[in-house]
């Protein structure tokens, strides 16, 4: 049984909306003028020579760092705010009656937009099974969630344009749908720990909280700060690697190893990407640099997806409910899907 509880509004709605408006407006201004600001600081105020390699590297680093920082905090804020309206419980109810096929598509989309902590993967698995949601659909949901990161999506949109963002979304959704469908069709139930299927005693009741707009604004700000603090080391590392790629690694490495001529490029990218687990944002500067150096988009997307898709902590948790064979198949099917998508996109683009 579930009841609803509305938290009192700490400020009137109009005030809350105005606060959010100011935040958004301020952010738009900051983002729009960021590049000009750095140009002015370096070349007008300080009067440094833009042709100088050290100057241009420093300028690039600071500009890119601030650009990604502004984007990251803004996107995290927006995504957290919007996702505060989406709950796992509602999603579960919605997936309840759906069958294979269409159910997979819906599960993939919902997996992408529904926020949940990766430590919830196991309770979600058990809960979904308990709600008679088919295993394949549950798998699609659990694969789609980390694979299609809303934050990565908007970063790609801002940095590379809508076409690449759409490609990423389509790629991620497709991989999760096909992987989940496949795993469902091979009757993955036989490799799932029996306790998952046990009937549970009825829940004591949950309360669904309705936060007011001001609460959501606050939570979104907190989350933006927390994510930023967590990711900034990755971003910095990525920037350094990106700068090195920009300035110091010879062009042949790219056309040769990672470029269109190498038929194994996608395969390599995915194999390298799987053991690495980082957040998509940290990979962005590297993505930017490689893209500028002509590495094909399919290869880049495959790399990014394999980095963010399968995380060691999540695998360790899923190990509690999935027997090793299933876990291996889970990882294998996802990897295969990503590789396929990488080659496909390189081919059609």
């Amino acid at each position: 049984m579930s009841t609803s509880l509305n938290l009192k509004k700490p400020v009137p709605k109009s005030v809350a909306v105005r606060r959010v408006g100011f935040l958004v407006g301020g952010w738009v201004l900051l983002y729009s003028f960021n590049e000009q600001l750095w140009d002015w600081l370096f070349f007008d105020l300080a009067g440094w020579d833009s042709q100088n390699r050290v100057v241009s590297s420093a300028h690039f680093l600071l500009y890119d760092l601030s650009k990604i920082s502004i984007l990251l905090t803004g996107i995290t804020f927006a995504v957290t705010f919007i996702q505060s309206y989406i709950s796992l419980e509602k999603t579960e109810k919605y997936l309840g009656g759906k069958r294979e096929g269409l159910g997979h598509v819906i599960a993939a989309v919902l997996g992408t937009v529904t926020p949940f902590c990766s430590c919830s993967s196991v309770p979600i698995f058990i809960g979904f099974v308990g709600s008679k949601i088919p295993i394949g659909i549950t798998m699609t949901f659990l694969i789609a969630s980390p694979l299609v990161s809303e934050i990565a999506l908007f970063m790609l949109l801002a940095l590379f344009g809508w076409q690449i963002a759409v490609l990423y979304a389509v790629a991620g959704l497709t991989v999760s749908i096909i992987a989940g469908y496949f795993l469902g069709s091979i009757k993955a139930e036989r490799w799932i720990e029996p306790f998952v299927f046990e009937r549970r005693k009825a829940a004591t009741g949950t309360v669904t909280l309705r936060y007011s707009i001001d609460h959501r604004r606050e939570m979104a700000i907190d989350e933006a700060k927390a994510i930023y603090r967590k990711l900034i080391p990755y971003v910095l590392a990525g920037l350094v690697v990106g700068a090195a790629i920009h300035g110091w690694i010879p062009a042949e490495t790219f056309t040769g190893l990672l470029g269109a001529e190498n038929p194994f490029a996608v395969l390599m990218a995915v194999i390298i990407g799987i053991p690495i687990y980082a957040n998509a944002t940290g990979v962005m500067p590297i993505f930017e640099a490689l893209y500028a150096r002509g590495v094909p988009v399919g290869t880049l997307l495959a790399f990014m997806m394999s980095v963010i898709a399968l995380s060691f902590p999540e695998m360790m948790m899923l190990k509690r409910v999935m027997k090793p064979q299933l876990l291996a198949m889970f990882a294998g099917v996802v990897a295969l899907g990503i590789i396929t998508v990488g080659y496909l996109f390189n081919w059609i683009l």
Partner: protein
Amino acid sequence: MEIKILGPGCKNCELLEKVTKQVIDELAIEATIEKVTEYEDILSYGVMSTPGLVVDGTVILNGRVPTPRALRELIQSR
């Protein structure tokens, strides 16, 4: 007041514990805080998305870590 924090021990669960302790101290409430980390037990409360917060037997929130302000109001209203 009997408080239970549901979660297998990830960062969010620890954050929830921190925020809860902070609010309890601010409101000067007598409370015990217990961590529930086994999935079986967590699920018995009907909670799927961790972390969850149980106060005197009722789940008052789950899924995300509330801001201190929101949690304060929630606890005060009990």
